[in-house]
């Protein structure tokens, strides 16, 4: 069991959302190193750049211009090098159909974007805490699904 910080990669096109997310991560107990990209194209460029270390978790906004979250998720799951990555989908929709669809496509965590900062901190911490368990206990990633 290591206490190394978890590497987080966030892809979100909204400036405010990025700031909130970053602040939420700074406030939680689990130590993280955050990298931020602005959309799906940038995300895939980052992931496919062999000189960049792969993150432990990717937080992926569903609605992004150029390449959306679902497209990125599909590409990640098809790529031998990337398919084991933990992907958390980050979306404004709370519709059950959207949630199930993202899990079917291989998402591990589905986060409905909360409206206020306190709630955001709570869900981000919960997602990180559960991910930490999977990270340190060698659990079956294929059935790692968490909807918050």
């Amino acid at each position, binding site marked *: 069991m290591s206490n190394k910080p978890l590497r987080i990669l966030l892809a979100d096109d909204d400036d405010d959302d990025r700031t909130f997310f970053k602040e939420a991560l700074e406030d939680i107990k689990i130590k993280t190193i955050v990298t931020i990209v602005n959309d799906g194209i940038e995300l895939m460029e980052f992931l496919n750049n062999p000189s960049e270390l792969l993150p432990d978790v990717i937080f992926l906004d569903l609605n992004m211009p150029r390449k959306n979250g679902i497209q990125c998720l599909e590409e990640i799951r098809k790529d031998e090098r990337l398919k084991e990555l933990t992907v958390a989908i980050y979306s404004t929709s709370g519709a059950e159909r959207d949630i*199930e669809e993202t899990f079917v496509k291989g998402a591990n965590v589905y986060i409905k974007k909360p409206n206020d900062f306190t709630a955001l901190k709570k869900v981000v911490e919960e997602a990180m805490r559960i991910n930490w368990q999977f990270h*340190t206990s060698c659990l079956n990633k294929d059935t790692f699904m968490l909807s918050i």
Partner: protein
Amino acid sequence: MNVLIKYDISYTCKAILQEQLQKLEMDYRIIGLNEIEFKKAPTTSQIEQLKSDFLHYGIEIIDNQRTALVQKIKDTIIEMVWKENNLPSITTSMHLAEKLNHSYGYLSNLFSEVTFTTIENFIIFQKIERAKNMIINEDFTLTEISYELNYSSVAHLSNQFKKTTGLTPSAFQRIVKIKRENRSSS
């Protein structure tokens, strides 16, 4: 004027250790050069005290022992949850305390400090992992699963499943099924 000195480093260290350890007023034994055995497990606050006392002399308590113990707690829980048949009739806290030779209070504090979760939550987490496993691999009914995992009712299992994963057991089952179909068709 210069005075020459000579010392035996291990003798000196041992003297410092003894001096500091005596402050705790506990039974202890120094084993070799870098291990201390306590007759009774020190509390977390005693460990913290010792840590800061030792630090003054540049002596560090290696935390690995703590993480090693946490790993033992996890292993014991996993063994309890994942082995066939029912969970033991004695309580988990008693089982852990007996098996690992520490008070449950100590184990529980240590666990929370190191893993960002509580022993209780970790047990629930593992039980739900096993439930998932039974749902997808062995075609058990929810009634059978709740019996196997010692839930008082199917409703209790379903609630805990939903609370832990955000999904109902049937939604989970549906998703896994579609994922498998997609995989075999592609």
